[in-house]
């Protein structure tokens, strides 16, 4: 039982929402996507599964790109391309990157700066099905398209959705 699960279970025992939170522990450990519990989010830095931790190899880009709590994924909704043959900023072989997309702003814990992240979908093959991740920081309704993650952005070319990337466009505060 890792730290996050311990925290979640402790809260569950103390909470009137015991039933939900008790079950939520499994979800948060696995998906770490839904920030229902700030304490759970804060404690999710450790390895969240039995998968050997992966890394970008860059200390300035910390975290595991195959997990939902990787810092760039603060507004993502879809299958993580790092789990599908691609990387956090590259599509898997044989797919096409959507030219249109939505963007979010995520804080990099390494330098404390906010970055504009482009969540380009990869298209042309059936849904990857791995590592579904849904986080909605700064997400807005569809009538604010550039800030909405419910839209299938595989449009125009190969229209079938495969997975989603999180590409750094630049500093948000620059």
């Amino acid at each position, binding site marked *: *039982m890792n730290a996050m*699960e311990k925290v979640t279970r402790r809260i569950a025992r103390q909470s009137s*929402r015991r*039933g*939900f939170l008790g*079950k*939520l522990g*499994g*979800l948060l*450990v*696995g*998906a770490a*996507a*839904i*920030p*229902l519990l*700030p304490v759970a989010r804060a404690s999710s830095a450790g390895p*969240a*599964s*039995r*998968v050997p931790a992966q890394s970008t190899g860059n200390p300035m880009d910390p975290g595991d790109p*195959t997990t*939902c709590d990787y810092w760039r994924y*603060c507004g993502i*909704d879809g299958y993580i391309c790092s*789990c*599908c043959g691609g990387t956090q900023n590259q599509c898997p072989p044989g797919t096409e990157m959507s030219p*249109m997309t939505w963007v979010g702003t995520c804080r990099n814990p390494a330098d404390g700066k906010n970055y504009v992240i482009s969540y380009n979908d990869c*298209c*042309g*093959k*059936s*849904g990857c*099905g*791995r*590592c*579904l*991740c*849904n*986080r*909605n*920081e*700064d*997400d*807005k*309704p*569809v*009538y*604010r*398209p550039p800030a909405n993650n*419910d*839209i*299938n952005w*595989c*449009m*125009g070319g*190969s*229209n*079938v*959705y495969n997975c989603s990337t999180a590409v750094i466009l630049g500093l948000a505060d620059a």
Partner: protein
Amino acid sequence: MKRGAGWLLMLLASAVSLADGPLKPEPLNQHTTLPETWPDHWLRVHDLTWFKFLEGRMLVIDPLATDVAGQFKGSMSSSLNGAYERSLKRNEHYITETFWSRGNRGGERTDTVTIYDRSTLKYPDEIIIPTKRLSGMPKNISTAITPDEQFLLVYNFTPAQSVSVVDLESRRYVTEVDIGGCGFVIATGQRSFFSLCSNGTLRVVHLDDTGRWSRTQSSPQFFDADEDPLFERAALSPGKAVFPTFQGRIVEIDTREELPRIMKLWWLTTAQERSWRPAGARPAVADASGLLYVLMQPDGAEGTHKNGGSEVWVVDQKTSKRLSRIVLKSWGIALGATGKGENRLLVVTNGDLDLDIYRIPEGAFVHTLAVAAKRRCSPCRPTENGEPRTCRISSNTAVVLSSPWVKNSVVPWPEARPVEVGSVCWVVCSRVPQLSPSCRSHVPRAVSPKSRRRPRTCPTPVTLRAATIGAIARSMDFSAAAAAALQIPVLRGRRCHR
């Protein structure tokens, strides 16, 4: 003596059976049908089939039936997040959907309005429309039907935003109307619709009697799409559209006239209750009596608007007062309402993507329905001929597990939650891209009594609540929203040891 009596009874029973003769041949090509008029409390449920979007379907469900056969009345196909409307006048259902000529690798796209007969659920016809309909998570305002049921309106996003107008009487596509800067369609009056705009206004489009554009109007700005946007899921009832906002206000819009009127904009919560916020894939519905039900989360904050909630607040729209709070049995992620009079029901899609039924307005829990295509199979029981069922472990990378260990295990992992896909029983073991070594250790390697022992610690598969959010479908008129099948859920579990 007793043994003799037993034999006698068996012989008598055999004699009765033989007297009836063998079973008679049955006619082929027989089909059930549904009644022309459905009971008020039946549901139309959108099963999005999250991992197989092209295989979505709309289910017809009797939420009060106590057995599975009675609950599941039938289904209609709904390819790629279809949208549902109906006409009582013509006794038809309309599902706006998308097809690809090469299936899961694309090809030529075709969008249709597929027409289904209400009683037979057959599709006698379809209307080809421009290949522009919004592709994304379903919303209950991505299509609309005019109150006279003459025109179907389809929201397009390419990302240019427009509306396709379809004449349902003549079954033909009419025209496309530009709504740039705005999204969705809510019918108002007899020949008009409005859309929600990113600048915080409503765009009102009036059509003529042929369905073509007549004129456009805009409302003054009345909300901030960045600070406190309206959900793009509305509680619709005749003559009214109600939208919660992310922070907890309620916007009521009168849709009886051609020009919609913003009636009220008020806080659902008191100043002390601001941490309670509406949330979910469909956070508000109105029942047949006009009461409003809002799904509320206790710890609302930025980014939590799709999470769902633990309570449903019952609101009198006339007085803008909260009447009661229904504490849900399970965390809810979408609402639906059905029924009339004393037989009104609240339908809550819960975190397991099942439907919890409550009587309203009192909020008494009735039961839970499991209708989505995520059926849990009995834990890997052997097939009828004694052969072990093919079982696969892990979320994605399958490991075939077919062994007497499974065959002889009544419950391999008591906490496991297998899901049945076709004839295969999946036991979700890991969310990870590949089967982890520790998980693989669950696969028995030898057929021996020892190997049949339950592992000391087992994975705890949990159904995918993250998909919850994304996977939920729109619900229809007086129906429940249900979510997709969760065939390969996310998961993880405790570390599993041998």
